[in-house]
């Protein structure tokens, strides 16, 4: 049994992947000597040297563009974009280049590339350091989007992302880095596209991912007091997402709530709700309810941000709506 935090779990994944395959390089701003703004790459420079742990200038577009060119030429780059908000600067490389290269060149070669980036609020970091933009990337054919919810799946999902022959947007949550988990085996691998059951229950299904899985667990505990047992599906991967796992759970509970920290409008929840309304309609006894952030930029002041982010109470209300 090992107690390990989310950041260390990611660090182990990077370190083990680099030890296993010399083509794996990490690159980004302040990831080498400084160890990464959130410490995820700490120690890698000493272990693997400056040729494989590459400190770059503050040039998001060129970093991801170069990682794409490097992936086309034999490396397996893992890029860090310091805040997900900064991925806007690298959108051409991600969307027009990396995502399309395999398809657009007729399947000549894979483009194995991981873009690690933290999303999410809770740190009062304001409108440009807090956004959850994963739905943008999930909308782009050719990209995979992965979002671990804890130290328990962070390692295995990152190893899977690095092993994947496609560009993977690997979304971490800033609020999780220091969060610890007790694990039997902290280094087991995962499969991209498979969800996990974070909690079993029979009254309603909450589908979530990332840090919001913890919020859903909090909500589940509040609901127990009212005699309601919810099931929680942790997607782990957003693109592709595990339809079978969601449908299986809805077959059992006949009610579906999708909860995430990203704004509700046009989000991951909308995609899941629309799909289940289509392929799972016969199993539903109530309308599907989405829980997401208000349609506003992430505000700075603590009181505003609290109002912005979905909390356990919001999820409890949503569950109760499906049971009315």
């Amino acid at each position, binding site marked *: 049994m090992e107690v390990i935090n989310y950041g260390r779990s990611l660090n182990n994944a990077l370190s083990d992947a680099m030890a296993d395959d010399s*083509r794996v*390089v990490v690159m980004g701003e302040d990831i080498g000597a400084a160890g990464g703004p959130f410490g995820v790459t700490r120690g890698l420079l000493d272990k693997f040297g400056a*040729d*494989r742990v*590459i400190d*770059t*200038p503050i*040039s998001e*577009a*060129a*970093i*991801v*563009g*170069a*990682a*794409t*060119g*490097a*992936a*086309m*030429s*034999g*490396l397996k*780059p893992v890029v860090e974009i310091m805040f997900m908000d900064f991925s806007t600067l690298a959108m*051409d*490389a991600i969307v*027009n*280049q990396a995502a399309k*290269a*395999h*398809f*657009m*060149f*007729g*399947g*000549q*070669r*894979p*483009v*194995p590339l991981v873009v690690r980036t933290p999303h999410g609020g809770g740190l009062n970091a304001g409108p440009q350091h807090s956004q959850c933009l994963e739905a943008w990337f999930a909308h782009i*054919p*050719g990209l*995979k989007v992965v979002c671990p919810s804890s130290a328990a799946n962070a390692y295995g999902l990152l190893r899977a992302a690095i*092993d*994947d*022959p*496609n560009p993977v947007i690997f979304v971490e949550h800033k609020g999780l880095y220091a969060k610890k988990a007790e694990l039997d085996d902290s280094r087991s691998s995962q499969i991209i596209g498979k969800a996990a059951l974070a909690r079993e229950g029979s009254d309603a299904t909450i589908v979530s991912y990332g840090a919001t899985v913890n919020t859903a667990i909090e909500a589940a505990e509040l609901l127990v007091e009212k005699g309601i047992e919810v099931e929680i599906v942790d997607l782990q991967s957003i693109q592709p997402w595990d339809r079978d796992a969601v449908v299986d759970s809805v077959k059992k509970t006949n009610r579906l709530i999708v909860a995430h920290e990203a704004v509700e409008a046009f989000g991951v929840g909308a995609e899941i709700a629309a799909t289940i309304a289509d392929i799972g309609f016969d199993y539903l006894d109530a309308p599907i309810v989405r829980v997401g952030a208000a349609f506003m930029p992430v505000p700075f002041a603590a009181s505003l941000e609290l109002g912005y982010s979905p909390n356990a109470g919001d999820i409890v209300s949503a569950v109760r709506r499906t049971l009315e």
Partner: protein
Amino acid sequence: MVPTESSNGSGNLFALYRDMVRIRLAEERLAALFADGAVPGFIHLSIGQEAVAVGVVSALNPDDTVASNHRGHGHALAKGLDLSAFYLELLGKDEGLCRGRGGSMHVADLSKGMLGANGIVGAGMSIAVGSALAHKSLANGQVAVVFFGDGALGEGLLHESINLAKILGLPVLFVCENNGWSEFSATSEQISFNLESLAAGYGLSYSCVAGNDVRKVANAAGKQVAEIRAHSAPSVLECKTLRVRGHFEGDAQKYRTMDGAEVDDHDPLLVAARALRAEGVSDEDLAEARRLVDIEIGQAVEDAKKGSPPSFADALIDVYAQQAGA
């Protein structure tokens, strides 16, 4: 006597000349096919700029890598891409280089180090820098080259890429094909600096050549590529050239007047032909070279017309690469 490819001097120039003729005739044929409606989409021709592609690629090894741009046919053919597969792609056929999914703006053959034409101005800059990063990391002795136009000088990515290459000491040659035009506008009205001062500002060595003289381009590129290979330091080569056609085929070019005498003076094929004649190559030899290339192209186009429509099911599968062994 037709000079041989292996000899130096006029023999080498003759081979360069033939490669330029191949690009010219291939694009002229393409223009005709486009006018007939046989080529879907947009095409951007490099007629008048062949010496840059041929001269620079002549300085490379087959495994060196090239990132190109929307005007990329010349780079692709100079890099040795199969002519039939090239036409098959531009006609949107399953047997095309990219199985009909990319077209003119995305011709690529990674097995030949051609990392793709590119529909986004300036995007090849960072792809070449990344390719050079891989070359350095894998210590394979290879060099990466990017061809970009003067229109790309306004793209932020160009600046980021040059800085990144310098800071990381990467083996990459930045080749500017300066034809004076940024799509439909004069570059002089859009860009406040010149490339020489930009290169100096970033600490890169720089040279400038008459880009329509293939021998000059080949010599300059040869020197720079040797330096890059030896010292893993990026450099800039500016080639002054002439875009004879519009930004794209069908562009009426109402924004510009063209001087026919100037075009002839600077036509890279005529420049090379004059030099070859001065070295004793006969008009018959030049005509024979052209005739043979024309036959090759005619055959490639006929092959391409017989291509099959691309498979939608296969295209859908290839949105993602499959895990090896999966």
